[in-house]
């Protein structure tokens, strides 16, 4: 298959592009910076640019759409322009180019309304109820993508949950950085069970999604390792792997949520591009359980995670050891 992967310069996108290429598919990538993935053809540009998108989708059999604005802060309009309008542009171009498969990479946060999610499947995306600009625009984008599902274009939304692994500049690096500066609190006991996904497993699931889109299309699937862990244990494991102090100070979850809400409002009027230290979204993510029923995902994708959390932590430690 000829597969276009957008957002392949990101942590997950790079792994996905590499994995699909390794499986013998012909991969083109679309992102503003070089992807750095061996054996793929890079097209430079933004998904918001119609001409670039038209060129990139030409002749493709499948599209895996990862490109998105991911941040805890920023203008709502900017999130919407990239995450919703960019997706619409890509879908239109794909349909025009005769692409048959479209994998929309989404996020479980599209259905996280601030309450615990315990053993549920992929709940409906909720652009109003989701928390924060990122989750809301991703929710809208997922609904938009699934509305394009048709006999000609098989659309499948995949929501990998909390992807981590060696070389992750987002989650792991930030946690490690904050822990090193002893600025990483645990909310409550840090006991909330959360699912996460080791990066290789997430990439494997994306490959399975491309290959199984013809039969599995028309729905959203959450992808995780299927090994939820208390948030303190997961963060502690990452810190130990990186050789930094494990967080030990605790903040009540309710307080963090309140502070997070206040910080969000301050950041909204504050000039500057840095990330807020705590947002309501982050506080909710860290203090409520969210783990998922993986039965439908595994059956629909004929896929199993290959790397356990334990093995992932070993690999993370090796990475930091080498670094």
């Amino acid at each position, binding site marked *: 298959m000829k597969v276009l992967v957008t957002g392949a310069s990101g942590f997950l996108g790079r792994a996905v592009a590499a994995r699909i290429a390794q499986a013998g598919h012909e991969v083109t990538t679309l992102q503003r910076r070089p992807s750095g993935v061996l054996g793929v053809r890079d097209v430079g540009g933004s998904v918001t640019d119609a001409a670039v998108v038209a060129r990139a989708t030409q002749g493709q059999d499948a599209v895996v759409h990862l490109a998105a604005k991911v941040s805890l802060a920023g203008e709502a309009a900017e999130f919407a322009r990239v995450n919703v309008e960019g997706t619409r542009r890509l879908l239109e171009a794909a349909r025009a180019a005769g692409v048959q498969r479209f994998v929309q990479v989404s996020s479980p946060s599209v259905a996280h309304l601030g309450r*615990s999610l*315990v*053993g*549920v499947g992929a709940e409906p995306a909720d652009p109003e109820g989701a928390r924060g600009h990122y989750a809301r625009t991703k929710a809208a984008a997922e609904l938009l993508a699934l509305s394009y599902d048709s006999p000609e274009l098989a659309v499948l939304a995949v929501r990998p949950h909390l992807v981590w692994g060696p070389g992750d500049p987002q989650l792991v690096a930030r946690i490690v950085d904050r822990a090193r500066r002893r600025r990483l609190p645990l*909310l*409550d*006991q*840090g*006991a*909330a*069970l959360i699912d996460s996904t080791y990066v290789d497993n997430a990439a494997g699931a994306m490959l399975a999604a491309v290959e199984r889109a013809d039969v599995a299309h028309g729905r959203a699937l959450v992808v995780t390792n299927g*090994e*939820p*862990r*208390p948030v*303190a*244990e997961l963060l*502690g*494991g990452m810190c*130990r792997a990186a050789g930094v102090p*494990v967080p030990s100070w605790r903040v009540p*979850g309710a307080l963090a949520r309140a502070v997070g809400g206040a910080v969000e409002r301050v950041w909204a009027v504050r000039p500057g591009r840095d990330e807020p230290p705590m947002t309501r979204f982050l506080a909710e993510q860290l*203090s*409520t*359980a969210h*783990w998922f*029923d*993986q*039965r439908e995902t595994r059956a629909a994708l004929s896929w199993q995670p290959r790397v356990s959390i334990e093995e992932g932590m070993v690999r993370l430690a090796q990475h930091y050891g080498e670094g």
Partner: protein
Amino acid sequence: MPAELRDTLPGLDGAWSRVVRVPGAAADGGAPDLLRSWHVLDTGPVLERGGHEIAGTVLAVHGNPTWSYLWRSLLTASLVQADAGGPAWRVVAVDQLEMGFSERTGVVRGLAQRVADLGALTAALEIRGPVVTLGHDWGGAISLGWALAHPEQLAGIALLNTAVHRGCGPIPAPLRLAGATGVLPAATRASTAFLETTLALARPPLAAPVREAYRAPYRGAARRRAIGDFVADIPVGENHPSTPALAAIAAGLRRLRVPALLLWGPRDPIFSDRYLDDLLDRMPHARVHRFEGAGHLVAEDVTWAGAVLDWLPVPAAPDATAQPEPEPKPDPDPAFRPLGSALEERAEDPRVAVVDMAAQPPVRVSWRLLARNVERLAAGLLAAGVRPGDRVSLLVPPGPTLTAGVYACLRIGAVVVVADAGLGVAGLSRAVRGAQPDVVIGERRGLTAARALGWPGRRISARTLAAPVAAALGVSASLPALMRDGDRALAEGARLPPHPGPDADAAVLFTSGSTGPAKGVRYTHAQLAAVRDVLAAELGLRPETGLVTGFAPFALLGPALGTRSATPDMDVSAPRTLTARAVADAVTASGATTVFLSPAAVLNVARTAGDLTANDRAALRGVTQLLSTGAPVSAQLLGSVAELMPAATAHSPYGMTECLLVTDITLPEIAALADADDAGVCVGRPVHDAQVLISALDGTGAAVGAPTRDPGMLGEILVSAPHLKDSYHRLHLTDLEATRDAPDGGRWHRTGDVGHLDVEGRLWIEGRLAHVITNPEGPLGPVGPEQEIERAAVVRRAAVVGVGPAGVQHAVAVVETHPQARRAGLAPAALADQVRAACGTPLVAVLVVPELPTDIRHNSKIDRAALAAWAQRLLAGERAGAPR
């Protein structure tokens, strides 16, 4: 009912509602054109439209002050059953005249009038085919009046909290208040107090919309008038106009042979258990289920409609011409040996039969004296009016008094009720009320509780009490006095009747309450005799072996086994207080060679072994058999006690109150299995005449598989044996579940335990059915992983529980450590690593607690349900505190 209400009341379909014009009956009959307007809920038209063939009709009659809305769940469930292809029972739920949305006639309607009214309604509805009546509260009496008047149509009677007899004691307080002159109009007409009081009896409280629905027909004093009239119609004296009608119904009940079902909420201030007892006295064949915790509005408190639908008589197939022959009752086993036989055979034996080490100084009773006391007490009880079948609750600690009391009751066919003080006062109180004893025999402490908590039954003190004390406790007799009476009667030539037959009820033993509210377990004489025989056969108990135990009911079986028994000095309500020295003392005093301990006692005997003297140790060296049963104990723990008794073979049999001995295994056998791959605790092979089968679990943990002996398959354990219980006491639905999908032949019991059989036919216990963890890889019993985790050096005890919805649960370990953790919460990383390393099952979290919650009785059954709820809260990010 008003059009605007038709589709607004929760649970009620407006399509059921109809108004029927009925010619007046009885007092109304004088005017030929008089038509009464009835509101009824009727599924007939719906069933007809659906093309269903109607199997029969349930005629449901509400009480005061409710209306047909009470029965809505039965209407819904019956239609679901019909649509699913099951029998289509039409339900006609009436609003009685003056009540609900039926006509306010302005005529005060007494009981006889209401029965006649109901007959006129069913005639007008032209109900054909079999009819099952269903009634609640005073609607019960009215429905029974209809039943007695229509024997040709009557196919069954079902009742929820009701009464037909006022001789069961004083009219209950709420009605007394409402019935007092002057209070009545104020309470029931001018205000809605009676209505509100009744609605407030629901447990849990009614949802606001449901409460509103009950109020809907009673808005305005005029519409509530009948509530007062209805209360006034409760006969309070011989001259009351409704007394003859009620008496006729009460008497007529004894003639009814149709199937009967009684569903009862015991927490009812109006219709207490004594009314249930009266109904059962009149209809001994009735199926009865007491919903522990439910009250007067049992129809709102519990899910009950399915119980009625499942019980409804199966309509005869059209081509069934011949009635199936009733199964011939097997002849009584000629080999049946009454429980009192061994005692009678040794009636002249001067040697010691029973030793009570708790008395100061220890009390020794010879066979001769025990036999004599039993005979005298039996005669005394008979003289005092205790009859065969009467239930006698013995609130007496194990020892010679209890033993004499038990065997005297068994001798005359009175049913012994044994509830362990380990249930605690609240649990014991629930048990005693549920058993409705006719007689309570107790020590002062038990009688004080009986008095204070208003337990039913005549009170007899175990010892002679000073007259004022006896009067204060409501005690009518004492055992010494009864023995004197019996002695006199025997001297005057009275003879005891023949021993009760094998099928007569012998005992109600209460479960420990460690796996839910304590349940009464009924044993017949044949079944209790089979318990005796299996113990004798399995343990090789002979007259000279002797038995040391404080563990009910084994403590009571010595005289039946014909062997000497000794109860050690201990607080029987807390077996964990039994010390090694107390065991040694009892062994020394009795010369017994068999010691029977509860698991909690095993723990404490091991803990206190250091206090043993050289003489104690010498005495224990004479013990040849050591048994621990009730809950699994670790081989290590059992071994540490076995070391004190080097000549003894240690056994760890498996059993339960419902079947006291199912399988048996010895410590050497356990040791030989140490490296087996099987998960769980091996409890050995079935004892002789006992059988074990396994019913496989589905993805949600329900035991739905056909019972088999297939090895290696996790499922619910079913047991069968001659010494299996007969049934539960007044728990019809529990009986149904315990015997659900039983194999053909024999009597079977679902234990609620899960485990598997190995290829050698040995049984391995893996936990309770309710504690099975269900995940996509299949069901998981907690005991296997718990044992693995307990191998980690730092772990003292472990519990493995599931979090998440059924089918996608994950396993979580909760551990108790040495040294003890200071607070409950997530385990530190190092501990979590050790626990995970020890456990072959993936664990999503490892939690630590200072002490795992356990039941009081055994102090060994970990309360996994409480731990699971706690873990679920904690791991959802909620403030969870500590478990329990």
